[in-house]
């Protein structure tokens, strides 16, 4: 099984060919937005962070920025910083260079002489980069080059019965093909961590699974908060999910049945050809997806019960639902109806063929519903308040 992708100079394979206009901080975000709007194939996002953060928080932000620039769906990156922020240009550029040797341009607003001059310089650089990117030709690559991120959002009981088991089937197939599948959302392991821990490839990995769950719970308790305060959400409950444990036991089906071969911290580089791995991310969808995309995943497969629009600036997000009513109501946002897993006529295995074919098509360039709508929302996970 092969897909048509783009070979990058660092050896990775992309499924899109974007120019990333990367704001190093909140203060550069609007300028980056103007630049991206002027260049075909350019993408950006509103970076809420990049300044006034404690060390661990800033590291997460830097890891997302560097990971986005290094993601193989990106041809090259134009970084725009304000100049005085904590995420200094040299720090961001060094973090990117640690991960990739792809094209990189840098503009500092306070040195260029304000927004208008920065826009002029950055648009020229990005336009040249876009012209170079357009000369790339797609080549066939085995599916094993893919790192697939898995996510569930707006869950309901059909997530655990149909769409997540279907994602698990895809995950098992990606593992047997020699690729990588990422299971994420640590808060939604709570109550199911013992099942995942049993599948750790080594005792150390099993212990790490317990550790990331307990660390998350403890971190919230330290500030007097409880993970259950917003989880399950009102929509989860309206759909029929009663407790976090129930949600978690459905969530972990996305990981299929193979051994867990690694546990990665948020937004850290994920290895290709690694089988099933876990990334320690929040249950919050846009920030969990951002962590996996920063880890290098080229495609995200996302299950929903209530129906969600989530996209991403650089990775296509394939949306599936096992809720036949939601698919009928929100077909504009959802790529694949997984309800036959519950109602037939197709079996889980037959639906696995359908999802793998969709994954192959999207990896080869087919736009997802979220891409066709131009959806690029994302968030960066955080440790605590700004300073």
């Amino acid at each position, binding site marked *: 099984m092969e897909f048509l992708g783009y070979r990058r100079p660092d050896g990775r394979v992309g499924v899109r060919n974007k120019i990333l206009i990367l704001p190093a901080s909140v203060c550069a975000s609007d300028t980056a937005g103007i630049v991206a709007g002027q260049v075909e194939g350019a993408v950006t996002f509103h970076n809420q962070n990049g300044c006034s953060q404690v060390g661990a928080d800033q590291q997460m932000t830097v890891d997302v920025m560097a990971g986005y620039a290094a993601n193989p769906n990106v041809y090259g990156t134009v970084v725009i910083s304000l100049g005085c922020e904590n995420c200094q240009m040299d720090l961001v550029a060094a973090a990117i260079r640690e991960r990739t040797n792809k094209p990189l341009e840098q503009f500092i607003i306070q040195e260029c002489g304000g927004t208008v001059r920065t826009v002029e310089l950055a648009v020229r650089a990005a336009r040249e980069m876009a012209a170079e990117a357009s000369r790339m030709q797609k080549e066939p690559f085995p599916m094993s080059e893919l790192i697939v991120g898995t996510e569930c959002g707006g869950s309901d*009981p059909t997530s*655990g019965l149909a769409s997540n088991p279907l994602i698990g089937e895809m995950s098992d197939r990606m593992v047997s093909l020699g690729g990588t599948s990422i299971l994420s959302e640590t808060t939604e392991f709570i109550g199911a961590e013992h099942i995942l821990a049993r599948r750790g490839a080594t005792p150390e990995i099993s212990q790490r699974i317990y550790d990331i769950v307990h660390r998350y719970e403890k971190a919230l308790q330290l500030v007097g908060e409880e993970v259950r305060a917003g989880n399950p959400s009102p929509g989860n*409950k309206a759909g*029929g999910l*009663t407790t*976090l*444990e129930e949600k978690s*036991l459905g969530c972990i089906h996305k990981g299929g049945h193979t051994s867990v071969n690694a546990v990665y911290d948020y937004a850290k580089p994920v290895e290709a050809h690694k089988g099933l791995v876990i990334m320690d991310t929040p249950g919050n969808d846009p920030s969990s997806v951002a962590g996996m995309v920063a880890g290098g995943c080229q495609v995200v497969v996302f299950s929903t019960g209530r129906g969600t629009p989530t996209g991403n600036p650089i990775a296509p997000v394939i949306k599936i639902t096992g809720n036949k009513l939601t698919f009928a109501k929100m077909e504009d946002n959802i790529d694949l109806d997984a309800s036959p897993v519950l109602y037939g006529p197709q079996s889980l295995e037959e639906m696995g063929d359908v999802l793998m074919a969709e994954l192959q098509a999207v990896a080869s360039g087919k736009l997802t519903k979220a891409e066709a709508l131009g959806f690029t929302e994302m968030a960066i996970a955080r440790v605590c308040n700004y300073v």
Partner: protein
Amino acid sequence: MNAMMIDPKDNVAVAIEPIRKGEEIVLRGGAAGVTATEEITIYHKVAVRPIAKGEPVVKYGEHIGLASADIAPGSHVHTHNVADHREVL
């Protein structure tokens, strides 16, 4: 078939069609011998066994919480009669 029981250890099933009060619960294996005592919204849970107050509610063969009231077979099982309970796993 109007409901699905995931694991033989479960004491709840998930309605996969809207179930009316008085309707029989029919699982993949056939009738569960339980009648819905109230309307069950599609994809919500229905008790297939009596669950005493304080007993675990079991789905996927795992505990998802504790019954906060006695739950009769055929009853809707949700936040009104299930309490969160964090277990050491």
